[in-house]
C-alpha cells in the first residue's frame, strides 16, 4: 500500500490496481463508484453537522453570546442531538399539496449540491472527476438547486412558500450572472476550465495576488454573488423568517426539512471551495518564487490541510457577512445586481482581458 499524504494520486491508483486485479473491470468500476459515493455521503453529513455547529458558535461570538455550551465540552454534541431530533420528527403530509413535486423538491436540492462536490479538488489526487470543463460543470449543476426551491414553493400550496420561491427564482437568475462572469474573469486569467490545471497554475502565486486589481474585484463580487446564490443572509429573502415564516420550506418537516437545511450549509461549503480553488490556489501551499527555504516549510503541511484551512477562512467570511448585515429588500437586491455588480463585472472582465493581453499577469 502506497499512502503519501502529499500526493494521494498514488493511493487512489493503488486502490484502482488492486480492485482490477481482484475482479473484472466492470465490477471494479462499480465498486469504485460505490466507494466514492459513500465517502461523499459521509463527508456531506459530517461537514453539515460541523458547519451548523460552527455557524451557531460564530454567530454567538459576533453577538457577544456564548452559543451552544450545555451538551458536551463547548456544546459540541448539540448539533448531533439536533440531528436526532430532526430524524425523529413526524413528516406531516400536506393536504392539497402536489404530492410528487412536494416529495421530489428536497432531493433535487440535495442532489444538486451532491453533484457539485464531485468536481472539487480536495487535495492532490483527491479529486473524484477532473472534467476539462470543470468550472462550467460546477456553474451549470449548482444552479439546478433553484429548481428544487421553486418546486418546493409551488407544490406546498402555501402563499408564503410561493412568494419565497418566486423571490429565490428572481434572485438566482440575477446573481448567477455575476457568479458566472466573475468566474469567467478568472478563467481568462488561467486560460483553462479544468480545475486541476487551475490549481497547478497557482503554484507560484495564488490568482488573487497574481491577477492584480481585476482578480481582487472578481473575488469580492464572487463572494457577494455566491452568498446570494446560496440563499444566505443578507440575501436570505427566500426564507425571510420575519416576513414569510420560513419561505419555501415552511411546510416541510422532519427529514425533508433537514435536507433543505443541510443543503444550505453544504452549498456554503461548496461555494467556499470554489472560491478557494480559483482565487486562493485550492490545495496549493503558499509559495513565493525564489524563497526555497520558505517554500519547503510551506510544503511540509499536507495539501488537505491547506485546502481545509483556506475553506474555513472563506466560510468564516461568509458567516461574518451574514451576521453583520440586515436582510435586503427584493428591489434593493435586484438593484444591487443589475445596477452595480453586473456593470462592474463586465468592465472588470475587460480589464482582466487587457491585463492578460499585455502579459502583466505572471
Amino acid at each position, binding site marked *: 500500500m502506497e499512502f503519501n499524504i502529499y500526493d494521494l494520486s498514488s493511493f487512489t491508483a493503488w486502490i484502482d490496481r488492486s480492485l482490477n486485479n481482484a475482479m473484472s473491470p466492470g465490477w471494479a468500476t462499480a465498486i469504485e463508484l460505490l466507494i466514492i459515493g459513500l465517502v461523499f455521503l459521509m463527508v456531506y453529513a459530517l461537514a453539515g453537522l460541523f458547519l451548523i455547529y460552527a455557524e451557531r458558535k460564530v454567530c454567538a*461570538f459576533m453577538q*457577544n453570546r456564548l452559543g451552544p*455550551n450545555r451538551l458536551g465540552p463547548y456544546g459540541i454534541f448539540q448539533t448531533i442531538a439536533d440531528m436526532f431530533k430532526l430524524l425523529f420528527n413526524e413528516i406531516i403530509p400536506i393536504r392539497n399539496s402536489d404530492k410528487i413535486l412536494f416529495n421530489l423538491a428536497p432531493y433535487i436540492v440535495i442532489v444538486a449540491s451532491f453533484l457539485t462536490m464531485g468536481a472539487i479538488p480536495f487535495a492532490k489526487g483527491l479529486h473524484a472527476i477532473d472534467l476539462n470543463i470543470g468550472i462550467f460543470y460546477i456553474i451549470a449543476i449548482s444552479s439546478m438547486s433553484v429548481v428544487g426551491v421553486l418546486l418546493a414553493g409551488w407544490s406546498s400550496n402555501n402563499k408564503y412558500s410561493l412568494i419565497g420561491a418566486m423571490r429565490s427564482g428572481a434572485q438566482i437568475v440575477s446573481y448567477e450572472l455575476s457568479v458566472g462572469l466573475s468566474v469567467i474573469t478568472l478563467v481568462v486569467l488561467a486560460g483553462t476550465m479544468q480545475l486541476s490545471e487551475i490549481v497547478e497554475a497557482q503554484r507560484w502565486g495564488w490568482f488573487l495576488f497574481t491577477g492584480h486589481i481585476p482578480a481582487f474585484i472578481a473575488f469580492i463580487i464572487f463572494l457577494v454573488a455566491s452568498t446570494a446564490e446560496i440563499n444566505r443572509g443578507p440575501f436570505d429573502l427566500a426564507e425571510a423568517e420575519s416576513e414569510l415564516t420560513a419561505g419555501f420550506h415552511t411546510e416541510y418537516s422532519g427529514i425533508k426539512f433537514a435536507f433543505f437545511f443541510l443543503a444550505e450549509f453544504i452549498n456554503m461549503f461548496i461555494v467556499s471551495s470554489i472560491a478557494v480553488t480559483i482565487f486562493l490556489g485550492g490545495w496549493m501551499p503558499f509559495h513565493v518564487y525564489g524563497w526555497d527555504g520558505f517554500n519547503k516549510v510551506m510544503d511540509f503541511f499536507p495539501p488537505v490541510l491547506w485546502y481545509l484551512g483556506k475553506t474555513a477562512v472563506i466560510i468564516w467570511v461568509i458567516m461574518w*457577512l451574514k451576521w*453583520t448585515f440586515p436582510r435586503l429588500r427584493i428591489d434593493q437586491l435586484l438593484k444591487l445586481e443589475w445596477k*452595480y455588480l453586473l456593470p462592474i463585472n463586465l468592465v472588470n472582465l475587460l480589464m482582466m482581458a487587457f491585463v492578460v493581453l499585455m502579459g502583466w499577469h505572471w
Partner: protein
Amino acid sequence: MSSVTQYFKEIFSGVWSLLKGMALTGRYFFSPGEIVTQKYPDNRKTLKMYDRFKGEVIMPHNYKNEHKCTGCGICELNCPNGTIEVIPLQIVTEDGKKQRVIDKHIYHLGMCTFCGLCVKVCPSQALAFSQKFEHAVFDRSKLTKVLNQPGSKLMKGVE
C-alpha cells in the same frame, strides 16, 4: 457627469459603511471578554446583579429596626395596579400628640409590574428595590409580603 460621480460615490460610501459594520462584529468575534451571557444556574453563587436592577420592592430598615415610612399612602395612590396596601394606625406619642404610623405595609409581589413608581414618588425614600430575583414559590399566598418588619418603628427625624 454629476450622475456618474454620484454613482461611484454611492458605491464607495456603501462599501465604507458595510466595512464599518463588519469591523464592529469582527471586533466582537475576537474579544471574548465582552461576552454578556451569564451561565446562570452554574454561577449562582457569584452572580451579582446591577445596582439599577429592579428585583422586588423592599423597605430598608436600619440596625435599630427603624424604617422611614410615615404611612402617607402616596405609594398606594400611585401604584397602577393595586399592588400596595398601606394599613395605617393612630398612636399617641409620649408627649400626648396623635401620630399616624403604619400598621402594615402590604406588597403583593404577584401583581407588581416593577414600574418603580412607588419608589420614585416616596417623599421620604422609605422604599427601594432589592436585587433578589428568584421569586418562584409553590403557594401564591407567599407572594403577599409585609414590608415593615415586626416591632419596627419610624426613624427619628422623618416626618
